[in-house]
């Protein structure tokens, strides 16, 4: 069971953002991707989650081809992404943000809303229950009924994680979960991720913060200029000469 990224290429104008990227990631694992700015990490996420179309290559999740699927369909297939800059629904409260993310709601169809009000009410109760759980789990209780636009950067990252969880995915793609987050909260987020992973949810994490990432993931890949340079256990990867050249700016 894995996410297979097969020879993906993507160019913007003349610039090759992704150049034959090939990765296989176990669905239930914790996997990191590092690389300097412009290495193509976020572009890779966009292509994998369907927000950008690859010029070449295929993507499969647990054997199912995702290539013809729209972004929402890919999310429904069990793989949810977050964004580098948090995209909270800023006029909705934290609670509403989370409730909006719950899948398969009868009340999200106008027919269901007006013709099956009983069922809608029932579902809302169940969703509210799950949302409460998620809020407790993420320790967001204090801000649960605040408009999410007013949260701090770290809280927004947690909220995005929470929203992703509400979709009940097998795999979550986290785009720089620690960027701009204060160190205390970083520890918090890492704990949550580890705990979720033990429950069987896989994570692919893009991160700039090398140190934090090496503490968190047992496996990582290094990208530079649209290519995967190396892949493996953190220490082994960091020792790779190519990686040191590219990523650490040739400090030897």
């Amino acid at each position, binding site marked *: 069971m894995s996410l297979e990224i097969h020879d993906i290429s993507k160019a913007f104008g003349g610039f090759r953002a992704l150049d034959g990227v090939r990765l296989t990631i176990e669905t239930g694992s914790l996997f990191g991707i590092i690389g300097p700015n412009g290495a193509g990490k976020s572009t890779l996420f966009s292509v994998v989650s369907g*927000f950008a179309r690859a010029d070449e290559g295929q993507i499969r999740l647990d054997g199912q081809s995702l290539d013809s699927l*729209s*972004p*929402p369909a890919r999310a429904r297939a069990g793989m949810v*992404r*977050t964004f580098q800059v948090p995209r*909270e*629904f800023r006029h909705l409260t934290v609670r509403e943000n989370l409730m*909006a993310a719950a899948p398969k709601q009868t009340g999200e169809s106008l027919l269901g809303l007006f013709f099956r009000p009983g069922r809608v009410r029932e579902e809302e109760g169940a969703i509210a229950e799950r949302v409460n759980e998620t809020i407790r789990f993420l320790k967001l209780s204090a801000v649960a009924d605040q408009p999410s636009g007013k949260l701090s950067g770290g809280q927004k990252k947690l909220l995005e994680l929470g929203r992703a969880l509400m979709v009940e995915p097998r795999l979550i793609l986290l785009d720089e979960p620690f960027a701009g987050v204060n160190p205390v909260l970083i520890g918090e987020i890492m704990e949550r991720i580890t705990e979720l992973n033990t429950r069987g949810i896989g994570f692919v994490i893009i991160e700039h913060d090398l140190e934090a990432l090496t503490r968190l993931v047992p496996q990582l890949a290094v990208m530079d200029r649209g290519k995967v340079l190396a892949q493996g256990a953190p220490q082994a990867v960091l020792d790779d000469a190519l990686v040191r050249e590219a990523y650490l700016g040739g400090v030897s």
Partner: protein
Amino acid sequence: MEAYFIAIGIIALIYVILSLGLTLQYGLTGLINFGHVGFFAIGAYTSALLALKGVPLVLSFAAAAALAGLAAWPLGLVSLRLRDDYFAIVTLGFSEVVRIVITSEGWLTNGVQGLPGIPRLYEGLGGSAAQLAVLVTVLAVTLVGTWIIRRIAGSPFGRLIEAIRDNEEAVQALGKDPARFKIQVLVVGAALAGIAGAFYAHYITYIVPDQFIPLVTFYVWMAIIMGGVGRVSGAIVGTAILMLFLEGSRFLRDIVPGVSEVDMASVRIGAVGLLLVLFIMYRPQGLMGDYTKR
């Protein structure tokens, strides 16, 4: 005196129905629909033409809502591929195309000659009783419309369209297709506009393409901006202010002599413009507050 107020009430309520649709589309979903008058026109002509052929008014109203809603469907598909501001211009263009088609297809719509003698509602009652009955009917429809919009706003559906307004890509990332919601929202808003159009046609009894110009759309926008975007109460209060303003200026001239009728028209449009600018600058949330402060 009261007949005049009933007349104002009917026209005002027709505008409320229009602004309810826009509240759903723009206030809640963030769709900048600048072509509202197009659906209004489709509703007006559908109901008028059917009624003139002898179709019972209940059916002609239903057809007006259905056809206007149906016309919104393709726009919903287009909306997914366009930036917000482009969508605004495209919808504006759509309403002009509707007007041009009505103008040109004279075999159906009688073109620029317009459709005279559209049957009135409750013709049998006669006189002021009929007027009152019309008012009550429009009021009832407005209340139902208000209830529907409120119900939508407070539902999982409403939550999701607000999420779309705040960030469409995030909604996609959560496995939900914004297209489906946007289309439904456009269709519901357009159907409401279609019903408003039907009321308009059967009240004025004569319709002609140049009644359906973009100015009507702008009036509705003014109403929701003055009232407070995204709030049902805002739509109602904003429309009330707009009517008070447009009609009140008649009396202003009765009281304050010396302003010529020509200048009055300029003064009226100038004041509308000034009011709009002032609202946008100093009270962007409108009188009733906007969605950020519910």
